[in-house]
């Protein structure tokens, strides 16, 4: 009797395990098929999206190389560079350098702002070889919807205010929002956010100035 009971229990366990295993296999199979069917397209789309984002920051007329290929990793404490902490990166990110006719024409630097209203603000700054900002875009942020989120280009064109600016234009004492006696528009109700982004762009420019030669030669070292 006792043996029969354990036997039937064992049979049940084996049977349910087999059924469960069968479903797991089926699920794995389905996922595998869908993954195979989409993996190329996903990679392609990911690259396109990245390229679109880069093209916004660094106009295609100013480089004739593939930015996605001439890239290098910017570590938070990159030993090759002077004061890498200026970029305040919380993890290694990609930087992209542009070339035109074989000469360095500019760079796209990742930079973070940790003093926004909520969470870190991830920013890409395009800088031309002469130290001018080509464009700035916010990649990710958690600023207040309706107020601070206007730093996002899909929501407002405030971020275009940086185009063409450099460390000497305006001069350093004017690299502030109007409220603080500077030249840059602030977003109504989002002074903290605006200050954070402004400061991040200025830090990126400073980093570029300090490391101009290393950055310009970064292509050759690849």
């Amino acid at each position, binding site marked *: 009797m006792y043996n029969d009971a354990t036997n039937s229990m064992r049979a049940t366990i084996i049977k*349910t395990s087999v059924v469960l295993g069968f*479903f797991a296999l089926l*699920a794995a199979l389905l996922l595998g098929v*869908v993954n195979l069917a989409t993996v190329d397209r996903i990679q392609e789309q990911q690259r396109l*999206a990245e390229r679109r984002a880069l093209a916004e920051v660094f106009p295609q007329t100013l480089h004739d190389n593939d930015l996605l290929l001439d890239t290098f990793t910017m570590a938070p404490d990159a030993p090759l560079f002077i004061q890498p902490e200026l970029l305040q990166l919380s993890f290694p990110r990609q930087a992209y350098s542009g070339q035109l006719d074989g000469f360095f024409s500019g760079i796209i630097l990742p930079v973070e702002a940790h003093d926004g209203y909520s969470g870190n603000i991830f920013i890409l700054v395009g800088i031309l070889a002469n130290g001018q900002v080509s464009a700035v875009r916010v990649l990710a942020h958690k600023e207040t*919807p*309706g107020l601070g989120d206007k730093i996002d280009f899909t929501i407002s064109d405030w971020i275009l205010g940086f185009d063409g600016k450099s460390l000497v234009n305006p001069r350093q004492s004017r690299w502030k929002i109007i409220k603080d006696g500077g030249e840059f528009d602030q977003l109504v109700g989002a002074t903290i956010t605006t200050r954070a982004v402004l400061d991040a762009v200025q830090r990126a420019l400073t980093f570029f100035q300090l490391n101009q030669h290393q950055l310009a030669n970064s292509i050759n070292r690849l």
Partner: protein
Amino acid sequence: MALSTSNSKSNSNPNPISPDTRPETEAPARAESREIISQGLWTNNAALVQLLGLCPLLAVSNSVVNAAGLGLATIGVLLGSNGIVSVSRHRLSPAIRLPVFVLIIATFTTCAELLLHAFAIELYQALGIFIPLIVTNCTILGRAESFASKNALGPSLLDGLMTGLGFAGVLLVLGMFRELAGTGALFTNMDRLLPFAGNWTVRLTSSYKPFLLAILPPGAFLFMGGLIALKNIIDRKLDSPAPRQQDSTTSKRVRVTG
């Protein structure tokens, strides 16, 4: 083979068995599907009556495009999971029923995520964590457990579709109200979902003052409450053409459901 040929002939030369049974099974089947449709879309609406799947519903309904994207993904997962659960309902012992359901739902959710990533990458980025979170939408497990595990494939698929449409409909209406109130425009960024819909944006006035609350999470609760109230009002109107005395009883019944 012999059976199928005799069946095809029976169109012209009625077989005594099938015509007799058919009307009997078809009539209840039609009534049953009507019941499934009305339950899924209205009477037992997942979002308005059962209040299931509120987390994605409230979080993603801040614009029409997000609502439509998540609604479609949810319909797809519901259809898939209801179908597979129904087909395999006789093979599942109680011990492994739930794990298998979760496995099936997670599989379809991952498929939906991969497809969205491949074919609507901007929407995929906008919806973010809420695509994988479809797994935790209780509506889907609820339908698998309470309907698909007890019914044949056809009704289960219909139930999945209708429940999904009911959920997506509420999501869409909520998205429309919130986007309109919050930004003064409708259908912004629709090209994230439909590549040809880039110029669908409708703007009420150029000088609309954004009503922030509508887009923020509290706005979702407010508008959701409004929708539930609206549904109850409509139900009451539909339910009681008769004297007003019945009002109290009907309203109670509507709220208790689910």
